Every structure is written in C-alpha cells, then in structure tokens.
C-alpha cells in the first residue's frame, strides 16, 4: 500500500544546530503513528516540515505519492494536514468558536454566519466526542479543553492527518484518558494521527507504529507488537557515552543547600512544585533528572530568587534564603548557570568582558565607590577568557557573535570564578558542541573536588549519570526518589521519569538485560 505521507531525505540546518540529518519517515492511512525521542531529537522540527511551517534545506515530501512543496502551513492544510502545537495557537481573549473558524469563516451575504459555524462545530464535536463550549473565551477554558479546541480547529479545516505535538505533556491523567478516547474516535473515522511523546507507556498504549528519533536521525520504526518499553528506551537514549572520567566520590562535607518541603506555582499545572525536599552537601553533585517541564525550571527559579516560593523553606549553609531577591541570594554565595543562556545567561549586546564581570562588578578590585576600574576589569576578563578557553580570545567582542559552546563557557567562567559555595547548573551543556561539553563537565567535576556543592539539572540522562553522586528524579513537580549514582541505570531512571517510584522501577524487571 502506498504511504499516505512520505518524507524522504529531509535535511534541515539552523544557524547553531543541525536539526535533521537525512530523515525518512512514512505514514500509513488510518494509523496512529507515534514519534518518540528525547528533547532536541528533531521530532518537532520534522513535524513542522510536514506542516509547512519550516522549509527543509533538502529532501522531498510526498502526499499520496505526489511530490509537494509547502511554502506555508496553508499549503499543508489544503492537503489535509493539521497540527496541534505544544504552544496552542489560540487567542485567549477570543471565543472558542472564533478561534476555530479563523481563516475559514462561513458567511451569509458577506456577514459572518455565527449560527452556521455554531452548528458545524457542535456537529463535529459530537461526531468525535470532543466536548467544547463554543461561546466561552479560551482563557476561561482548561488546558484540556483548549487542546480539544485545537483538534476541532484542525478538523474544521479539513485535516485528514493530525499531528499532535506532545499533547499529553500538559494534561492530567484524566485528561490524557479523555484524549486517548478522542484519538481512538479519530482513527475510527479514518483519520491518521501522528502522536509525539516521550512517555513510553502512553506510546505503547495507543500506537500502531512507533518511530524513534535521536540526534536528528530516525533510529528505527517498529510495529507496536514488536516494541517493548526497554527497546524504545535504548533507541531513544543511545549507548555511546562521551565522558567516563568520573572520579570516585570524595567525602561529602556539610549540608550546603537544604530544601524543605517547598511548593511553588508553575507555568503549567504539571510543573507546579509540590512538597519538594532534598539536600546537597559540600563536595557532591546532586543531579536532577526528568523530562522537561516537570518542575525543574520552577525549582531553579525558586532556589535563585527568580520565582516565588509559596510554602516551605530553603536554607543555604543554615541561613534561610526563601523568597529573597536574586541579588541577595547571590550574596549568600550561590552561583547559577541558567537554563536559557540567550535570554537570561548573557547580555548579547554586551562584550564578553562585560558579561564576565556582571556579578563581581560591585566588589573591589573591579570597582571603587561605584567607579569601574577598567584596568582591573580588562585584566580579569582577559584572564578568564584564557582560563576557560573562550574563543575568539578577545574579551572586547560582543557575545552575540559567539557560538553556543563559547557563550556557555562565558557563563560558566563568570559563575564558577565567583567562588560560591553552591553552584546551580541548569542544562549546562544543552545545545553546545562536544568539545565544550567535555570542558564544561570537567569544570563541574573540578568544582566538586574543590568542595563545592553542585545541583545539576539536566534532561540528558547520560550527563546526569556520568556526573552525579546522587540522582533525584522529578516528575510532575515532585521528587520521585533519590537514587545513589552507583545503583542508577538508564532504565530505572527512565521509568521514574515516566512517573514510577524507585521501588516500582526496580521491581520485577531488574534482571532483564538491555541489549543495544
């Protein structure tokens, strides 16, 4: 049978990353096809290519065997391809009905025919079991409802193929069940569904076929009958390890960071922190593993003063720092490598040197009575540029012109050279080249040797495992358990990242050997 959609040899490069490396992908009519992989594996990019939002550098798109060129989403839409993005394309101040009909409005004598639209929408919603309130505003809808609106919108535009980009990432378990019923109903009506996820349990539950991506490449496509969670996990995570230089854990010193039962509001419901507690001691690295969006960002913001804590207490070496300002927390000897180097970590309009001195500027010798001493500043900047191998080796260059790896080195240099007691590193190597990854990891280890307490947040399991002394897994804003590094493996952590406790993850499946 000819595939409904065939993508062949798709290549897409972005200024700082190669997102897709010769990807082939095919879709059969009427199937539910899951696309799994870690963050940054290229799933969303590939689907945006199919949806016409991103134009590939090379490669072809065939729909029912015919070669197509998409210049915009409208072209894809006209061929029956619809997509529900992770970030909903819905205007919060407008009604459900208005959002659905935008661009495809029914009219009666050139006046908007709201009645007809209402009928069409209720008809569709009945047919597929998608309960919505057409006259309510989007902002008065729950996330689950908004998602149903998005699906209805795609159907209203005549979608035959529906791409759902991590639809369950924002849903509660009940809402997820509801969504699965909808997907079943879509399939029953002959629609084809592409389901993007990294929750393996779900994928196994609803898919006909599963394609796994890693590093911008397809690792394989399996029928659900042939797939096991373990097989998928291996394909997803891969086996090669960059760094095996892990030094034996030195004696852990006194507690530096003490987090006691904190709760905080989240960007989404699932990233709301609930009763998070842990400690980090001097001379140890505590890794925080987890799928993105499970509260890691909120945790880091709470610890650094960038976000508010609603309940609980945070202590640094015994002094409470709960809800202090970022500046005050830094004064308690806390350094922070932020998850987003481009918005928070660096000021791209400023030079490397100016970025390097941002947190030590107020102290001598860099300034005296508020006046900057440029000689000292330049000396320090030049020293750090050399020490941290920042290229180009000229601190007068704006950071906007640096590569991802060198940008990250500037941040690491600034935060590490401050000589703080606690270093919070959020995704310190995300999106940087291999050379910089190794360099940054070795610096983190060296910091540990010097007796610093380090909190390492990363979605990269391999990084977490090769650096941490203990590993805490976060899921839906909670700590599922803290595992000593010696007892951790990818499968156990992977299961915990999908919501299992340590006991559940280790029981029953402990003796299965994972083969690559």
């Amino acid at each position: 049978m000819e595939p409904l959609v065939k993508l062949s040899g798709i290549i897409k490069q972005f200024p700082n990353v190669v997102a897709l490396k010769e990807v082939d992908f095919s879709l059969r009519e009427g199937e539910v096809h899951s696309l799994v992989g870690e963050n940054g594996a290229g799933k969303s990019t590939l689907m945006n290519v199919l949806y016409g939002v991103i134009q590939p550098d090379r490669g072809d798109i065939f729909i029912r065997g015919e070669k197509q060129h998409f210049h915009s989403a409208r072209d894809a839409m006209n061929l029956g391809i619809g997509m529900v993005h992770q970030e909903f394309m819905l205007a919060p101040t407008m009604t459900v009905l208005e959002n659905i009909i935008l661009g495809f409005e029914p009219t009666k004598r050139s006046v908007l025919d709201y009645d007809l639209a209402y009928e069409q929408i209720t008809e569709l919603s009945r047919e597929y079991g998608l309960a919505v309130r057409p006259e309510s505003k989007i902002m008065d809808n729950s996330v689950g409802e908004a998602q149903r609106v998005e699906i209805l919108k795609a159907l209203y535009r005549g979608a035959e193929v529906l791409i759902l980009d991590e639809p369950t990432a924002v849903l509660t378990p009940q809402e997820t069940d509801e969504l699965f019923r909808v997907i079943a109903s879509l399939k029953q009506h002959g629609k084809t569904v592409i389901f993007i996820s990294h929750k393996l349990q779900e994928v196994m539950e609803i898919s006909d076929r599963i394609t796994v991506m890693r590093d911008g490449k397809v690792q394989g496509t399996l029928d659900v009958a042939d797939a096991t969670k373990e097989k998928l996990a291996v394909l997803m995570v891969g086996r090669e390890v960059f760094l095996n230089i892990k030094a034996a854990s030195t004696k852990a010193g006194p507690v530096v960071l003490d987090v006691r039962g904190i709760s905080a509001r989240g960007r989404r419901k699932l990233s709301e922190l609930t009763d998070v507690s842990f400690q980090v001691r001097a001379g140890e690295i505590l890794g925080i593993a987890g799928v993105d969006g499970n509260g890691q960002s909120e945790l880091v913001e709470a610890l650094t003063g960038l976000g508010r804590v609603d309940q609980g207490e945070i202590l640094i070496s015994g002094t409470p720092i709960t809800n202090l300002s970022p500046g005050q927390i830094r004064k308690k000897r806390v350094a922070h490598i932020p998850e987003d180097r481009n918005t928070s970590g660096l000021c791209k309009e400023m030079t490397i040197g100016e970025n390097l001195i941002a947190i030590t500027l107020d102290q001598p010798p860099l300034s005296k009575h508020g006046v900057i001493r440029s000689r000292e500043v330049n000396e320090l900047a030049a020293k750090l540029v050399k020490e941290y191998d920042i290229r180009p080796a000229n601190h007068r260059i704006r950071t906007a012109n640096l590569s991802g790896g060198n940008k990250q080195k500037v941040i690491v240099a600034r935060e590490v050279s401050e000589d703080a007691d606690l270093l919070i590193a959020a995704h310190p190597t995300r999106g940087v080249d291999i050379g910089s990854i190794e360099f940054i990891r070795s610096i983190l280890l060296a910091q540990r040797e010097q007796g610093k307490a380090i909190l390492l947040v990363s979605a990269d399991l391999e990084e977490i495992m090769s650096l941490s002394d203990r590993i805490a897994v976060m899921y839906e804003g909670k700590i599922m358990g803290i595992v000593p590094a010696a007892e951790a493996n990818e499968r156990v952590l992977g299961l915990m990242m999908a919501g299992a406790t340590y006991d559940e993850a280790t029981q029953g499946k402990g003796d299965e050997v994972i083969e690559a």
Partner: protein
Amino acid sequence: MFSLSEIFTLTLIRATVRMSTPILLAALGLIVTELANITNIGVEGIMLVSAFIAVAASYWSGSWVVGILAAVVAGVLIAALMALIHLKFKADVFVAGIAINLFSLAFTRFLLKNWFGVAGSFYSPRISPIPRINLSFLQIHPVIDTLFNNYNLMDYLAIVLVFVFNFLIYKTVWGLRLRFTGVHPAAVETGGISVTTKKLQALLISGVLGGLAGAHLSLGYTTQFIENMTNGRGFIGVAAMYFGGVAPITTWLASLFFGFTEGVGARLQTMGFPSQFILMMPYVATVFAITFSMIRQQKKLTQKQPF
C-alpha cells in the same frame, strides 16, 4: 460667582457632542489600528495634514465635498507613509508615530507659507464649510430640537460610523481577522492570512478616519487652518480609545466624556474660573484608565517577567 445652572445647560450638551466629534473620529481609526497591534500615535499628524488639505481644497474648489475628499486622500497618504516606515522599514511604532507628527507639523507649516504665503493661520471667506444639517422632523419640540438638530454633517457621520465600525469589527470576516491580528498573529498566519496586509489595511483605514477628523476640525468645527490646530486631539483620541476599552460604542462614550470636559472647561474659562484643572481631566483619567487595564492584564500573565 457663577451658578451651576449657568454651566450645565442644553447648549453644553451640544458643545459636548461637537467637541467630541474629532476625538471620536480619530479614536475610531485608532481602534482599528490598535486591534492590529499598532498604537498609531501618528494620528495627530494625519489629522493635522488633513485639516490643512481640507481648507486648501475647499478654498480652491469652493466645495466642501472636495475639501473632505482631499482631506481623506491626504490622511490615507500620511498613513501610507507611516506604514512604509513602520511595516516596511521596521521603525518602532512609537518612534514612527512621533516622526510622523513632527513631519506633519513641519509639512503643514511649509505648505501654509508656500501656498498661501502666511504663517500661523489661514482664513478666507472663500473656504466653503461643511454645512449643518437641519432635520425638520426633529423640530417637534424645542428641547429635542436643541439637543439633536442642526449639527454639522460630520457630527452625525461620526455617530453613524460608530455603528458601522461596530458592525465591521464584530460581525464580519474582516473584523474577526483584524481582532486576531493584534492578539495572536501566529494564529492568523497559520490560518493563511497575511498579518502585514491586515496591518496595512488598518493603517489606511485610520488614515481615512483621521482625514475626516482633520476635515471636521478645519471645515466643520471652525472654518480656518491654524498651525498645530489639532493640539493633542489625536492623543486624546488615543486616550478615548484606551478609556473605551478599544471598542467603538464605549469609545464613543469616552469621547463624549472628553468632549464634555472640554466644553465645561471652555465655559469655566469664559467665567474667569481656572479651567486648567477641568481641561487636564481627560489626560489624568487616561493615565488611570491605562494603568488599571494593565494591572488587570498583569494578573492574568503567567509568563515569567524580569521584574
């Protein structure tokens, strides 16, 4: 001393309506652009140039109709210039608006000198004003007659336009897409609609309305052109637009409020009472109105703010 009854008379209501007209026309244009996410403070300049062109065209042709048409064309041209530097050359919308206003002031000064050889103001009996409309069916009762009859054509037109735009914005495909353009351009683009085109349309429409507002200032409200005669009415239009919550009918009420303060102010002034505090009311009210609407909006924001 004066008594309140001297201020609050039927003619005050008339003055309120008349003074609100240019504000209302400008504000209607501003609603259209604001919905497309363009705070078009250049409307002040659009009005000024149109006011001048209206006088010039009326003076030469002897016809107020030609005057209005020319003013509308001028308004659209200035709006197109705004579109050029904001949409094409990517100037910040406020910088573009400020530049348009500075340009318009200089441009009208230049034309005033160049075409009529005068500086400051131009008046001639040959300027044909926009006529007042006498609706005989309103003459049934003197109060009704005073309140509703014998307004300038533009005063009536502005009110009609309130309902026209209310219809266009809320009942047509064009309006729906316009409203989406401001709040979620990405959704508009994925719906296959060009955001830039919508923005251009909005700017040109604000040019038409600004043109009418300008024509009303120089051919209706008065029959002359005075340098910088808009005197911030475009900005008050911005205020009315925000105060009215970016919707035609409530903005009409806001314009009436601003017209009323102007009317009361003018009256108090003739009685020797310090009118300044009354005159500043619209502006103070606007600052409060914008602030409250932002505080309301902030509560709904979930995105991380730097402070």
